[in-house]
């Protein structure tokens, strides 16, 4: 079966709109993805027919809402190969999921001066700042992997970087700037040998590749609904149940308790322990529908389509004079996220002129200032692809870059 991108596109209402008089060419899916009508319909039906609060009512609406919410949890567990739905904690986004682990695991491990946390230079700010703050709170030391010239993790210092003082290693699975898909198996093995726990920021991988947490071997992963065809307002933390069960709560309030008196409180088992307050219910339903949509196409097929587009785009951009690519230059070990510089033109200006042509790319530091600094630039232009991206859209990008060079020639 070939991947029918035209049929896929028909499911995304926004793709038929115009921008500045041109058909929309949306090349910013690493920032946020568009949503198919199936996801929007599922949320609408939920809100119009089954809206009630969860886990709190015996009434029919509450029971229907609870089933819908828990069904979504089950779908997401199956999607990533979790051992049980109880390993899935709904958060508001990836960022909250990482903060949750930084707080709760940090407290559980009783981090102290002398302990070390290892991240990398190619992280999103959401996988940097929570660990910086954890180090501030506890006196632990932050260390990091560097990035090689071709945009890969520099593994040379692996054995010294991860050592008996290392307690937590948290790395991006696929870079949102360089597109690199990190082969983390060696790092995870080393970390586990050293007695450290491993978190992976899968914000960019779970939407685009088949990800199986058993095969990955990490202890926690985070990802976010809005980058995988789902709504804003929902993210996911997966963690090994035995670890979650040992961790203290982070956010506190309704639904995460076992019993409360004014004098003290005991907590529910995971995942409830980590889901304080009314959760993003309709958003979970939407994310469940997004997972159904991805499953129906098959993540292998989605990934293959993106590999094809990426190969085409790498070739096309390499052929544009004055364009400098950051990150791996072949499709192997990378996803469909291409960052580049245009000689003598600031990314802001590149993005502005492309936008005038309906081509939506992201410009700036992509919430990854250290990655930009590593490559000696304050900002980059980034085109990122998804299951609805076509080669025509890559052609539109390339033509747009010619226009950019004309204006700033």
């Amino acid at each position, binding site marked *: 079966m070939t991947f029918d991108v035209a049929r896929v596109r028909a499911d995304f209402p926004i793709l038929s709109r115009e921008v500045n008089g041109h058909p929309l060419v949306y090349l910013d899916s690493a920032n946020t993805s568009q949503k198919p009508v199936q996801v929007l319909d599922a949320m609408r039906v939920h809100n119009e027919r089954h809206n009630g609060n969860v*886990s*709190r*009512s*015996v009434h029919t609406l*509450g*029971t229907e809402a*609870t*089933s819908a919410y*828990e069904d979504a949890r089950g779908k997401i567990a199956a999607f990533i190969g979790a051992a*049980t*739905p*109880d390993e899935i904690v709904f958060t508001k986004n990836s960022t909250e999921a990482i903060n949750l682990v930084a707080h709760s695991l940090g407290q559980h491990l009783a981090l102290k001066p002398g302990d070390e946390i290892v991240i990398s230079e190619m992280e999103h700010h959401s996988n940097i700042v929570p660990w910086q703050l954890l180090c501030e709170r506890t006196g632990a030391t932050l260390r990091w992997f560097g990035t090689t010239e071709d945009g890969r993790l520099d593994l040379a210092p692996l054995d010294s970087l991860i050592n008996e003082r290392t307690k937590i290693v948290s790395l991006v699975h696929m870079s949102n700037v360089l597109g690199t898909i990190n082969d983390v198996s060696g790092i995870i093995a080393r970390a586990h040998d050293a007695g450290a726990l491993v978190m992976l920021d899968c914000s960019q991988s779970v939407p685009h590749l088949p990800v199986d947490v058993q095969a990955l071997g990490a202890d926690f992963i985070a990802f976010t609904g809005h980058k995988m065809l789902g709504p804003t307002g929902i993210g996911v933390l997966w963690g090994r149940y035995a670890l979650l069960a040992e961790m203290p709560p982070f956010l506190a309030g309704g639904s995460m*308790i*076992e*019993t409360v008196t004014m004098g003290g409180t005991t907590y*529910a*088992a995971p995942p*409830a322990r980590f889901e304080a307050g009314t959760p993003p219910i309709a958003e979970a339903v939407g994310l469940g529908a997004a997972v159904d949509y991805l499953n129906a196409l098959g993540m292998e097929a989605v990934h293959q389509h993106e590999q094809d587009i990426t190969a085409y785009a790498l070739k096309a951009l390499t052929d544009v004079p004055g364009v400098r690519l950051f990150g791996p230059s072949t499709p192997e070990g990378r996803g469909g996220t291409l960052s580049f510089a245009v000689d003598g033109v600031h990314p802001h200006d590149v993005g502005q002129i492309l936008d005038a042509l309906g081509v939506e790319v992201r410009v700036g530091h992509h919430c990854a200032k250290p990655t930009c600094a590593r490559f000696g630039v304050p900002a980059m232009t980034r085109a990122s692809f998804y299951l609805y991206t076509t080669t025509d859209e890559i052609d539109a990008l390339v033509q747009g870059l010619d226009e950019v060079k004309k204006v700033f020639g």
Partner: protein
Amino acid sequence: MMLDGLYQEIILDHYKHPHGRGLRDPFNGEAHHVNPTCGDEITVRVSASDGSFSDISYDGLGCSISQASASVLHELLQGRTASDAASVHEAFVELMQGRGQVEPDEDVLGDGIAFAGVAKFPARVKCALLPWMAFKDAAARAGVDVSSEVSSEVKA
């Protein structure tokens, strides 16, 4: 009304006239369980010797389903051997988790068959199971294993 056999006469009878209620001495295992969503509580005590339960006593606060379930538990398991109790326990848990698809065996479950209708109300399954889970823990503390698997869906 669409109560679909939830409030069987048998259940209401056990609720209004509970069997064996009240905490008694002696006992060698006790457990206190709470349903965090609704606040129902139960304490179960067992007195186990020579491999059988010579007394099962309990006290608690809760709805008709959880209270009747405790009464039925007392009736079914009091005086039984550990292995008898385990098979009844297993049959009851299976019935409750069957979403209304399991046909109960009256020979095993006695008045417990009245709970078949409860299995169709996911929000109430926890009520029915509360005393049974507390009993299992109390028995474990008395050194007797009465395990039957409870799926995570029912725990949630």
